[in-house]
């Protein structure tokens, strides 16, 4: 792992507060994930890929925009690893970069219908943009 990658790995681990080495690879996080079918990399893979410094594939993957932050993986992990916090840290490592917002204000008008609650829009911006 080069220095840049190793710094990024340390930053992702630090901002998530997760210790990936606590994981015992049981796969319960992925088994319970409601977004499993939408993801290229699943919650258990985030844990070991971050641990191994395989960050680029995660940062390029649409998986980081599929996590619902429903905390099912967090509450059901027998080792308290909290994979959702790692997914969020990887996503933030992407969208905090200049020009990397995943959602833009101009994306909104075409998709709004009269019943769509504000809650959906503000939450999506919090998740997808800085």
């Amino acid at each position: 792992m080069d220095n840049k990658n190793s710094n990024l790995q340390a930053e992702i681990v630090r901002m998530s507060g997760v210790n990936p080495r606590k994981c015992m690879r049981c796969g319960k996080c992925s088994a319970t994930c409601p977004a499993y079918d939408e993801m290229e990399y699943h919650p258990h893979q985030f844990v070991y890929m971050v641990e191994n410094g395989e960050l680029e594939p995660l940062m390029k993957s649409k998986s980081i925009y599929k996590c619902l932050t429903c905390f099912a993986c967090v509450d059901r992990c027998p080792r308290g690893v909290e994979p959702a916090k790692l997914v969020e840290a990887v996503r933030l490592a992407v969208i905090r970069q200049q020009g990397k917002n995943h959602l833009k204000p101009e994306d909104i008008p075409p998709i709004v219908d009269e019943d769509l609650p504000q809650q959906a829009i503000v939450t999506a911006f919090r998740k997808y943009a800085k």
Partner: protein
Amino acid sequence: MKVSYFPGCTLKTHAKDLDTYARKCAEILGITLEEIEEWQCCGGAFTTAKNESATKLSSVRALKAAKDKGQALVTVCSACHNVIKQTNYTMATDAEVRMKVNNYMAPEEPYAGETQVYHYLELIRDVVGFDKVREKVVNPLKGQKIGAYYGCLLLRPNSVMKMDDPENPQIIEDLIRALGATPVVYPYRNECCGGYTVIEDPEFAGRKSKIITESAKGHGVDRLVTACPLCKYNLVKNGSEVPVVYFTELMAEALGVKEMA
């Protein structure tokens, strides 16, 4: 009893029923919800990253406003509640975030998570009591089979939310029983509806919602109740054959204040 109240953005617009009936029912139960002045949107989702403080400011302002009045802070919307309770927990337990937020806000006395945060349901259970609700029921919802839809935000992460058993919650079922109806437990009541991903990928949210409403229908549910405007939107928009209403609307029917709205 007076409590501070944080309604949130959607309760002022698309989810007025959630707000209006919460206030009316609270009055009947001896609670006055005092809306916080100049509250700001909670942001809809709690950011778990330890190096974020700006996204926590609106919640801290509300928490601090309640503290200044010596009141508990009550929310009705599942999302506002989740964000504010997690923010309060962070302010109490994460010294770095606490320092950054207090440095920025510069209050006379630093805020450190002192405010008691209740979801409206917790207020009913822990402060009012379901027995009091039962006493105030004028139109018991006899024979109605009601399914509680918790979703994710009310219950998880349980280490912080501490509302109920996250895998086998009872709080809404107990309320349904107090209102004279029959609660129906069905398997998907605490699974996610797809949430905000409806913005980018409505088919995905649609599949998630469909699983929930079909599960409820298969278990004979007449109506679903929720505390979350986005859950309601997702469930209804994706063709729920079971009507979905806010839990406060169900309360208003039983407590006899719905027709006045």
